[in-house]
């Protein structure tokens, strides 16, 4: 009896330690997020002032920088709408287009590789594997040259814009089909066979049998494709360069921080802008978290 009691006591102490640890961990993970929010409400607007008055009193909190996002124009004479709004809409439109094309490409490749047996299937898969081992943006220069060449051949001038960026994001997206293929592999084959006996052709099997059963992977593919343009900086900065009208949010915000002049005036705006970008992305992510985990672990376990 005494022994059981001591064990219970031991467990209680252990659990208390673990709770303290968990609270500490949560604080570590939450603090930077709170800090971003806190700075975004800071009344100062230059880096130097914000750094010195980081811990300003709560009573001085202001939403003025959020308001500024909706009024500030980079070049007041020519800009039709506030720069941040424009970048936001750019990214949103881009993300929606990229999402649709990528999902179509990835799902059709994944389905083909998983279900349809044809000559050269394995060769194609191994070629794709090898291609994936080159660093993603190694061929950035060549892609830039190609896009520019297209443009000159079509007589569209020298500057590249959102359409080109969209092409970069979507055209080669098919090569990321592995996770979706892993999913299709788990959809029972007997369903196809039954449908085929009933006279369905390959296309009907895909559209009417397999796709309706693949909701998790469709959601996962849509979400990851949608998030891409919001997160990417590399391709965006290389393709868009100084074409500020075609900036995405990531590029615009990065510019606010890394131009000396803008650092002194737009520093807090960066944090306010970041919060406004993060909210929808967080919402999408948390809402579809279940599918995301399924997608990731499904791919991981398969190897």
């Amino acid at each position, binding site marked *: 009896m005494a022994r059981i009691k001591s064990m219970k006591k031991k467990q209680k102490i252990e659990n208390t330690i673990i709770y303290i640890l*968990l609270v500490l961990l949560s604080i*570590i993970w939450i603090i930077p997020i709170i800090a971003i929010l806190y700075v975004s409400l800071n009344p100062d607007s230059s880096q130097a002032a914000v750094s010195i008055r980081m811990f300003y009193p709560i009573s001085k909190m202001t939403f003025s920088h959020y308001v500024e996002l909706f009024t500030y124009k980079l070049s007041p004479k020519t800009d039709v709408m506030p720069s941040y709004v424009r970048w936001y809409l750019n990214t949103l439109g881009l993300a929606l287009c990229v999402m649709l094309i990528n999902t179509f490409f990835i799902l059709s490749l994944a389905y083909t590789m998983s279900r*349809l047996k044809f000559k050269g299937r394995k060769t194609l898969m191994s070629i794709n594997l090898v291609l994936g081992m080159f*660093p993603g943006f190694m061929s950035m*220069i060549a892609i830039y040259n*190609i896009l520019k060449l297209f443009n000159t051949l079509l007589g569209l001038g020298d500057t590249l814009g959102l359409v080109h960026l969209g092409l970069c994001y979507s055209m080669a997206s098919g090569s990321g089909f592995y996770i979706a293929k892993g999913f299709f592999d788990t959809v029972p084959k007997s369903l196809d066979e039954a449908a085929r006996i009933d006279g369905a052709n390959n296309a009907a099997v895909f559209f009417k049998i397999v796709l309706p059963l693949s909701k998790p992977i469709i959601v996962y593919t849509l979400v990851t494709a949608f998030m891409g343009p919001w997160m990417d900086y590399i391709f965006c900065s290389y393709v868009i360069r100084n074409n500020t009208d075609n900036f995405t949010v990531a590029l615009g915000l990065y510019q606010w921080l890394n131009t000396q002049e803008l650092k002194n005036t737009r520093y807090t705006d960066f944090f306010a802008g970041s919060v406004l970008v993060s909210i929808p992305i967080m919402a999408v992510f948390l809402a579809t978290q279940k599918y995301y*985990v399924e997608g990731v672990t499904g791919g*991981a376990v398969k190897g």
Partner: protein
Amino acid sequence: MKTISYIDYCALPRIQQIGYSIYSGFFKIIFGIGHFFKGLGLGIYHFILKIINGLADTGRCFKAGDVFTKLSFLFLGLGHFKRKQYAKGVIIFALEVLFIVFMVGFGGQALYNFITLGESRPAWFCKSDPNTFYLTQQEAINAGCLFPTQAAGRLDNSANMMLYGVVTIIVLVAFFIFYFKTVKGTYKLECDSYEGKHIKTFKEDIGDFLNSKFHITLLFLPVVGIIIFTIFPLIDTFLMAFTSYDYAHNFPLDVFEWVGFKNFSSLFNFGGTFGYTFISLFKWTIVWAILATFLNFILGILVATIINRKGIKFKKLWRTCLVLSVAIPQFVSLLAMSQFLNEYGPLTYYIEKWTGTKILFLSNYHIARVMIVTINIWIGIPYTVLSTTGILMNIPADLYESARIDGASPITMYFKITLRYIIFVMGPSLITTFIGNFNNFGVIYLLTGGGPKTGSYYNSQAGYTDLLVTWLYTLCTGNQPRYNLASVIGIAIFVVSATLSLIVYRNSSSFKNEEDFA
């Protein structure tokens, strides 16, 4: 290599076990590389054999075929026309004509230009003296012309010539494949009609694309996308490694030319600044990739185990706290962190104010490296928690039960049961993570931009926290871009990733199972 059985291995003293593991691991790598080259050689051999067989086959078709089939070798599609496949015949013939027009009007010149990469012709002149040309703008300025004008179309654009050349080669290869397929098809058609088999109408041919050829329908657009936006640029970039393409040798300043393996030899000349930078950054990249992968993995599993422990409440709350940091875009969280931590940021300011010492989190290279690894742990742990929670729940509880009865401590249980089980399940994806970290652009670029920069590295463009990929990026986009060297670095990264993947692939269960069957 001498292999020993598992029982003998267990009987060895601990030190010898470690020694044996290192010894056999080393041989595995050597064998892995050897096997790769063997496979590569065999692959090339089979490929050549296939081409020869295909040609011989086509020859036989030509010999056995009738007049129409024979003529089809010259006028593609004639055979199809004769067998009443009019639409198909017309399309095939049109493609042939298109190809010939392309080659005569464009391809031939493009191939020639591809070999020469254009000539450096006089391209700048003074308005006051339009008959004297200068090679570069600078020369014209030196010659006393303050505002030189560029002569239109006099200087070749080598980058575009290379692109045109690669396009022509791709078209050539594609046409040859198409040609041999069609010619063979013509002969088969002749045989079919001779044997009285049903010859497909155009409508049936189209219908096939929804059924027996559905894979072509589905693959067409994605694969064309991959060819144009991955394969074609990769070939082009690969070729750049053998040229002198950099900021000075770029349109409209100058042409560039083929230089053979010169760029590669400067990569392996570790005495020169380029080679020195490469080897230093390579070492740091490896250290970083190992730290980032394994620290995240081990600590992440630890956190996940704690959260999933029996009797702990609010599991969902703890998990959500962690996952929030995954949900915000990296450029937001990382850029914000870099702002909080940098020289002018609040952290340095307040620490100096309160303690009197100035800590440069991101500008001192030792601290910067530690900071980067630490922040990466902050980013990485939630991912590991997300992906391992499911696996943790699947570990049979009786394993822990029996371990506890045997008197194992929680730490032993963590290392011997939890970690081993997860490594067993997630082993292959661990390597993908490793390669991902090897190429982890975002964390480094957004936090430190590779800095603190140092003059001892190539062109003072690289810094102590730069990885090979971020250096590649700087080489492409920096002040004086050197596309050829960037391409060399890209190839080097490829070789490392490919070797690693190969070793893992050889040790993975699917490969071993194959061997078991043999």
